[in-house]
């Protein structure tokens, strides 16, 4: 029987990773390393900013990791990995030339077409800068398609700032307004002090033509959303990216489910208006 089970074409390679070689490793902080990888078959991932891949170290397992770079039409891409679990710990012991498995890219990323023509306010908290970097790269590649671009980036201590050099270059471009802050005073820091929301009062934005893209730890969202609302930004113009532990990445395993949504298929990027009535989301 079973012909009626599914008329569809089954995906035999659904869970099979493609091989990629680590070509460069930069130690960004004590916890985070930036890996440059290259697909062994020479076929790039053609990822959308904000999508994720399932990265595997054979014998250890798989973990979902955000794309840290935009698609540059090559077979290469960046992943920034914090050492917090089994797979990420194994990645941190890898060296240049090591081979890992990659599935994806998966999920709904940032829709740059929808962002075009708007002012862009980017709010990054800590490791939230990783998926945002892929978006910022895409914005800067097509800079004239967007209005004013502001980046608010907060981190706990100066040593935990990611992509410091690159962020420095963004602020020197002249057409990107970069504001940095650390949570608490620190001897190595003479810039702004306070959580990322403390950057909002000095901010001048045109709410009707601004899209706010907010990515950070769960605790940050409610506070930033409140500030963004006070600035007059509509809920559907706030764009967030959520973290969940996807085990499959393809809408089967159930781990990333929030209400009726699968973060791996329907997200990880959502507008706040999509999330605000979903409990457990943020």
């Amino acid at each position, binding site marked *: *029987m079973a012909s009626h089970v*599914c008329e569809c074409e089954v995906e035999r390679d659904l*869970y099979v990773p493609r091989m990629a070689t680590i070509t460069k490793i930069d130690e960004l902080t004590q916890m985070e390393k930036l890996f440059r990888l290259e697909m062994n078959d020479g076929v790039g991932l053609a990822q959308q900013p904000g999508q994720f891949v399932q990265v595997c170290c*054979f014998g250890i397992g798989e973990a979902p990791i955000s794309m840290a770079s935009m698609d540059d039409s090559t077979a290469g891409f960046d992943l920034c990995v914090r050492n*917090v679990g089994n797979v990420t710990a194994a990645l941190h012991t890898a060296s240049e030339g090591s*081979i890992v498995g990659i599935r994806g890219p998966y999920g709904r990323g940032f829709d740059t077409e929808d962002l075009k023509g708007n002012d862009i306010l980017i709010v990054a908290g800590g490791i939230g800068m990783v998926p945002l970097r892929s978006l910022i790269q895409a914005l800067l590649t097509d800079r004239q398609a967007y209005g004013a671009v502001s980046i608010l980036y907060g981190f706990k201590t100066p040593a935990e700032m990611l992509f410091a050099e690159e962020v420095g270059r963004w602020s020197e471009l002249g057409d990107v307004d970069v504001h940095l802050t650390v949570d608490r005073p620190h001897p190595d820091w003479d810039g702004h002090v306070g959580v990322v929301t403390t950057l909002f009062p000095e901010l001048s934005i045109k709410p009707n033509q601004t899209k706010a893209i907010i990515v950070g730890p769960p605790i940050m969202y409610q506070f930033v959303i409140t500030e963004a609302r006070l600035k007059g930004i509509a809920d559907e113009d706030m764009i967030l990216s959520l973290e969940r*532990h996807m085990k*499959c990445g393809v809408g089967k395993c159930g781990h990333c489910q929030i209400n009726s949504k699968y973060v791996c*298929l329907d997200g990880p990027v959502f507008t706040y208006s999509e999330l605000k009535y979903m409990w457990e989301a943020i």
Partner: protein
Amino acid sequence: MTLQVISVDGIRALLSNLIREGRVVAPHERPGDDQYVFDDLKDPDDAVLRYNSTILPAKKYAFPPKESLVHYELGDEPTATPVVQAEPLTLFGVHPCDIHGLLALDAAFADQHPEANYLEKRANMRVIGIDCEPDEYCFCASMGTASVETGYDLFLTPLYGWDEFLLEVATEAGEQMLEGIDTRDATGPQVGYLKMHLNRKMQQEREIHSDVSNLPLLFTGFADSPVWEKHAEKCYGCGTCNLTCPTCFCFDVLDEMDLSLGSGDRVREWDGCMLEGFARVAGGENFREERAERLRHRFYRKYAYLYTKYGMPYCCGCGRCVRQCLVNIDPVEVINDLIATHREGVTASG
């Protein structure tokens, strides 16, 4: 639909033929207690025709507790190849609730990324359904799953006395299985008995105080109900309800290396949303830390989220979850409690 009649001897002869042909799975009585399990059938006489429920549903043959998804070989040039295990299998003696369970899994595994591991097992599966007498835990009448119209090749309904069965042939594969087996056309009264059987089956002690199709709408008002906490208070968070459920299909993925450390398999294992770590992420944040949140999620998934997504409840009313629950958390009681509490709330606030 033409119905035939087959005797118990005819069924044993059919099973005997099927065993000669290939792998057959049927309900067995487990020695030492009065519980039943699906297991490989070696002797046609071992197949139990009349039973309340098996410990685990028939889904374990389409979605095994553990299976390899990918095999990999390490070395300078690592390779990864898909593992799709699917062999012809005849499932005998499946109750309508379990068939509904399989139909629910079919929809989920075929959606968006049709998964070979599950779907190819299903494509290699023949199903012979059998009707049953509900016990005190069953609530299929409330879920609309007491009878089934698709998802089987042959279906048996016991006639009075259980020594003869009405036989419905639903597919060509079903017809082929019957070659050389004695059957005769059902008489008018025998066909009439089918309706009587179903009517009797619909008389169940436990019923949900709402039409099943209203549940997704009703659930839109239950998110903040105190009922979740009330029932979750006694929950051990052991996940037995997940593991025994015909429509639960969450899984974990992990790597298992061979002893040589030169190769290994990426396997999946059943997981459960009632287990504490299910929604935890790498940094330690747990998005459903409380048992009440997990209980609520489980119920919403069954009666609202997946119901809305696939057009069928992800609960087939088999009662396994409460039958096996150590503290008797009963979906019928929880849902009725939600409905009652919600009504009071609506009345109280005018």
